[in-house]
């Protein structure tokens, strides 16, 4: 009987990038775990939390804790920022709600971002066919709240992917959730710097652990009609889908 892993795929992956979720399933299975998916999961509440909508964020946080706390095993999230929401911000959001403090703490302790999980369990990335040069963009919340930086890079290297360094890899791309809509000029100015760095890296594909940042960077790259594309790290590591 293999150990179960609970997938929390995030609302963006569910609706916009299900292939990232499917790739996550394959990776978790390759690592020797049984993937489970609690069907009642929705959104961790991060956009509301970052925007200052504490009441709405807390409601979504409680829903997320309810769904995950009744399951067993590690909770794996293919997103640094949603993982950080589960590990750091949800416990903070419900700290005055006695009925949720312990459950939020339990969920936080079980939660891992995908590449963090794979490295922790000693997974060796399988070689993948990839003749494109990739570069890694370190999304902020994974980087600064969970120290996700070397994990995805080492997995990509193990998989035999040609990886080039990204100048300013740890600088924000300018997404920032509602920030991207409230301050579009600033958000896209930051995106321009990120894209200039991506172009300077000589990569064909920019890889990250957060589809939200990739959606923003990808939307900007797409508008420029260049050839550079974005991919979630899981899609690269899991190879072609079945």
């Amino acid at each position, binding site marked *: 009987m293999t150990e179960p892993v609970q997938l929390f795929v995030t609302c963006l992956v569910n609706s916009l990038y299900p292939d990232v979720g499917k790739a996550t399933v394959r990776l978790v299975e390759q690592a020797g775990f049984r993937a489970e998916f609690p069907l009642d999961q929705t959104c961790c509440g991060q956009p509301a939390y970052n925007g200052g909508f504490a009441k709405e964020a807390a409601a979504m946080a409680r829903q997320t804790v309810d769904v995950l706390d009744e399951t067993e095993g590690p909770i794996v999230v293919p997103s640094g920022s949603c993982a950080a929401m589960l590990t750091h911000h949800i416990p903070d959001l419900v700290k005055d709600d006695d009925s949720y403090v312990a459950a939020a703490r339990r969920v936080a302790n079980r939660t891992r971002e995908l590449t963090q999980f794979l490295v922790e369990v000693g997974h060796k990335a399988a070689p993948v066919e990839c003749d494109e040069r990739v570069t890694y963009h370190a999304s902020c919340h994974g980087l600064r709240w969970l120290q996700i930086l070397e994990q995805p890079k080492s997995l990509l290297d193990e998989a035999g992917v040609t990886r080039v360094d990204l100048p300013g890899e*740890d600088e924000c791309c300018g997404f920032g959730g509602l920030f991207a809509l409230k301050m579009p000029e600033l958000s896209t100015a930051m995106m321009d710097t990120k894209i200039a760095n991506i172009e300077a890296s000589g990569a064909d594909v920019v890889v990250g652990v957060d589809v939200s940042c990739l959606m923003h960077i990808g939307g900007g790259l797409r*508008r420029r009609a260049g050839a550079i594309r974005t991919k979630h790290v899981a899609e690269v590591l899991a190879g072609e889908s079945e």
Partner: protein
Amino acid sequence: MTSQLTFRGRIQEAFTAGVPVAIETATRSRYQRRLAAAAAFPEMEATRDRARDIRSEALRNLDAYLGQFVDVTTERGGVVFFAADAAEANEYITELANAENVRRVVKVKSMVTEEIRLNTALEHAGVEVVETDLGEFIVQLAGETPSHIISPVLHKNRYDVAELFAAELGVEYTDDPAELNDIARKHLRERFLNADMGISGVNFAVAEDGAIALVTNEGNGRLSTTAPRVHVAVMGMERIVPTRADLAVLLEVLARSATGQKLSVYSNIVSGPRRAHEPDGPDQLHVVIVDNGRSATLGSSVAEILLCIRCGACLDACPVYRHVGGHAYGSVYPGPIGKVVTPSLFGLEEWHDLPAASSLCGACQDACPVRIDIPRLLVDLREQTVGHASRSIRTGLAAYSRLATRPRLFRLATRAVALFGRLWSQDGWLRRLPFLLPAWTRRREVPAPATQTFNDWWRKRGA
């Protein structure tokens, strides 16, 4: 301290005018220097922790430490004045200047005097004020305001300064930095010697022995506080540390965080006015302790911001600051720290858009020597001003939250969105959504929803 435009308006203006390249170059290079300084100091992380503990202790017992500081200073012949607000501080200092027949003042760079607009008050009272920090001197000459806590003139390059000096000081044009430095030095030297009063800020005040620490790299702090017959030190109420040993810890992190130096070139410690047996120093020392909103901040949910030691590290680390520069913040306190300090000192209602101007990337907290959780404070301020969010964002989030707390409804709604995915363009992107999200689509395309949600895929897979 009012701004006509919103932050968004000011950055649009800044982008139209063109943000000086110097800002990005200077912040990046100093950020690198700071990383190098930290790497070369194995105790850096432990020292940051100690510095945070010291600042926290100072704030926890602020009343007691301030009391101790006042007692020692008074005993040594200094005069302490508590100013509830900017007006009281300015009134005290201008009245003192009048009473002492002060006509010329030399000033050491100080954020709190910028905050209370002391120069304006003194000039109204007919006193000539000269800024003696090179950067502040340039800013004053240009009739501008500082754009950075540590480097007031970060927004100018040497050619700007060369033109300014030629126009304002009647010297021959030169853009050689050493020559420009020389011009400023000659000009200032005379001011130091003729000044009746020296005004400084206070980097830290030590409670146990009344020491006032002043950190500069130009030596102007020492001249300004010793040559004139009256020294006025203006300090933010929170600038206190308990002991001399604590001061040493803070100076170590301050220099490394501000400029990547092990120690600033001049760390002056002033202890009272000149005593009978001492050859020089001012006849009078006045310490003006400024509240101006700090007591209220101390009792608020963002009290942590008072740990700040004004090193400017968060400004250099901030991608927003790098892109817009300090003037876009519309306040004397720019950058990440300014987004909390400005609303908490000058009013959250008026400055509610500053906390919104962040992607919450966390680079500021990483850089902060006393580890202030600036992202958390920004979220806190956003919670307090959530009513300012646009109607579409408010109703959108409320609706999304209702859906996301009802899993079956959420599944139906996301499935409905997936239907739109099938009507999308072939390549999975749209240039624009009619009537929706122009803020997004002006410069970015929109990805198509998938034709099947992950949730539905999983259920079919299991079936």
